C-alpha cells in the first residue's frame, strides 16, 4: 500500500529550476534512499514532502490525509537540525511528542523509550546547547519518530557522524523499517546499499533511475571479468584478450578487466585456457555491479 504519491512536482527558485517534474510513490515499511550528487535536489524534495516548501505545480498525496492533517503521518529530520538550546533533551522530546498529538503521559513514556533507543539517555537532563553534533543528530531522529509516523524522512542522517555513530544510526534505521517507511537522502552510496530496499537516483532535479537494489544491479550489470596473475599479468592478459569474445580490456593496477559480450561463454573459455596452459592465476572474479557503477552510469547519461 502506498504511503504517499508524488505526481509531477516541480519547483523553481528564482530562475533556477531545481526540481524538473518528478513522479514516484513510497510504500509502507520500505526503506528508500534518495541518492544524488550535491545540488541534485534531494533536500528540496524532502522539504516539499514535509510541507516546508510548496511545489510550484504537481501534487503530493498522502494516503489517509484526506480528512486529517498529513503532518500526523510524517516525521522529518532536517539536514542540520536546530533545537531550543535552553531545553533539555528530555524536555524537547516530550514537547515534540505533545505537539504531535500524544497525551502527556504517553509523550513522557515515548521520550524515555527513544532516549534509550537512540543512546542519549545519560544526557537527557542536559541542555541541548551542550550536546555534540552526533547527539543532536540522534535527538533529531528521536523527535522525528516520537509519534510513530507512517513515513520518516531523514535528510543526510549519517553524513555528519563518526564511524561509530554512523553504524549505530544505520542499525537504528534498520529497526525503524519494521514500523514505518523511511525515506532518507545521502550521497554515501555504501549506506544506501547497506539498508535500503529501494533507490531513487536524482540528477539535476530529475529522477533518472529508480528501483530495488537487486533490480538495479541486474539492469546495469556489466559483463566484466577481473583477472589477476601471480606475475606477468599484462602479458597473459594480452594473450587472453586475443580470444574471440573480448570486446575490450583494461589494466587496472594488478588486475586486468575484460569486458565481454557473453559472460557465461567467456568464463568457460578463459578458465579452459588458463587450465590448459597452467597459468598462475590468483584471482578470477565476475564483477558484481556496485551502486557506484550504476550511479556513474545514470548520472552520465
Amino acid at each position: 500500500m502506498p504511503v504517499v504519491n508524488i505526481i509531477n512536482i516541480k519547483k523553481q527558485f528564482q530562475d533556477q529550476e531545481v526540481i524538473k517534474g518528478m513522479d514516484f510513490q513510497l510504500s509502507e515499511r520500505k526503506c528508500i534512499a534518495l541518492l544524488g550528487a550535491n545540488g541534485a535536489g534531494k533536500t528540496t524534495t524532502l522539504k516539499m514532502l514535509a510541507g516546508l516548501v510548496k511545489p510550484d505545480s504537481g501534487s503530493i498525496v498522502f494516503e489517509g490525509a484526506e480528512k486529517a492533517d498529513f503532518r500526523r503521518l510524517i516525521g522529518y529530520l532536517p539536514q542540520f537540525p536546530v533545537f531550543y538550546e535552553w531545553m533539555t533533551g528530555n524536555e524537547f522530546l516530550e514537547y515534540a511528542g505533545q505537539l504531535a498529538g500524544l497525551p502527556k503521559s504517553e509523550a513522557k513514556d515515548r521520550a524515555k523509550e527513544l532516549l534509550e533507543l537512540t543512546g542519549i539517555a545519560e544526557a537527557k537532563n542536559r541542555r541541548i546547547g551542550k550536546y555534540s553534533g552526533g547527539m543532536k543528530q540522534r535527538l533529531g531522529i528521536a523527535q522525528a519518530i516520537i509519534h510513530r509516523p507512517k513515513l520518516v524522512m531523514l535528510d543526510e542522517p549519517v553524513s555528519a557522524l563518526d564511524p561509530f555513530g554512523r553504524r549505530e544510526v544505520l542499525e537504528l534505521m534498520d529497526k525503524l523499517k519494521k514500523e514505518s517507511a523511511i525515506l532518507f537522502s545521502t550521497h554515501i552510496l555504501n549506506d544506501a546499499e547497506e539498508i535500503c530496499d529501494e533507490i531513487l537516483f536524482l540528477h539535476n532535479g530529475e529522477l533518472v533511475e529508480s528501483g530495488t537494489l537487486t533490480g538495479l544491479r541486474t539492469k546495469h550489470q556489466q559483463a566484466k571479468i577481473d583477472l589477476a596473475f601471480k606475475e606477468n599479468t599484462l602479458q597473459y592478459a594480452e594473450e587472453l584478450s586475443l580470444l574471440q569474445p573480448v570486446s575490450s580490456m583494461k589494466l587496472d593496477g594488478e588486475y586486468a578487466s575484460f569486458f565481454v559480450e557473453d559472460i557465461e561463454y567467456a568464463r568457460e573459455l578463459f578458465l579452459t585456457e588458463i587450465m590448459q596452459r597452467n597459468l598462475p592465476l590468483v584471482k578470477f572474479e565476475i564483477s558484481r555491479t556496485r551502486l557506484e557503477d550504476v550511479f556513474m552510469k545514470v548520472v552520465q547519461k
Partner: protein
Amino acid sequence: MNQWMTLFKKEMLEMSRNFKWIWVPLTFIMIAVKEPLTLYYMPQIIDSLGGLPEGAVIELPVPSAGEALAASLSQFNTFGVLIIVLITMGTIAGERKSGVAGLILVKPVSYAWFVTAKWASSMILIWISYFLSYFLSWYYVGVLFEFISFMDFLQSFFVNGIWLTLIVTVVILFNTFMKSPGAVGFISIGIIVILSILSSSLPHLLEWSPALLSAYANAFIMGSNLPDELLPSIIVSVIMITLSLLASIAIFKRRELA
C-alpha cells in the same frame, strides 16, 4: 486546546530560562520609577552636583502629582516601546531564522495556536512588568507628592496598555512575514514612530488614532476633561489588534518555512 497550552507553557518556560521574567520587569521599574524620583529630588541633585554659580537662584516649580505620574507614563511610550519591540522582534522570526521552526511546524501544530501562544505569553510578560512598574511609580508619586485616586491610575493604566498591546501585536505581525529579527524591529519601530508623529502633528485628522491613547491616558491622571475621542480611539485600537492577529495567522500559514 491541549496543544495551545503546550505551546504556551513552552513560551513561559523559555522566558524564565533566559531571565526575561527578571530583567524585563526590572527595566520597566527603573524607567518608570526614575521619573517621580528625579522630579522630586531635582533641586538636591543640582545642588550636590554644584552645577550652579554662587548666588544664582533658580526657582524650580514643584511639579504636581499628576505631572510626575504622567512623566512615568511618557517613559513607557519611549523606552518602554523600545524594550517591547526588542523582546518580541525575534519571537517567531528568530525561530524561523535558526531553523527550529521547521522542526516544530512539520508536527501537526496549529498555525493559529502557534502565533497566539506567542502573542499571549508576550502579553502576559509585558502587562505584568508594565503593571508592577506603573504601580510602583504611582506609589512613589503618592509618597513624595500626593496620592492620585487609584481608579484614575487604573484607568490610565488600561488605556495606555491598549496602545502597548497594539505594539506587541504589530511586532508579531511583522514577525510572520520577515525572517530577520533585526528587520522586524526596525520596521516596527519605524511604523510606530511615523504613526506617533502623524497623530500628534495632525491630531484633528487622526483623532481616533491609537497612538493618541497615551495622550488620552494622561487626561485621567491630570484630572482634565476626558476627550470625546477616547472611546472611538479605543475601539479603533481593538479592531486593529484583532485584525493584525488574524492577518498574522493567515500570513504565517502561507509562508514557506524553510
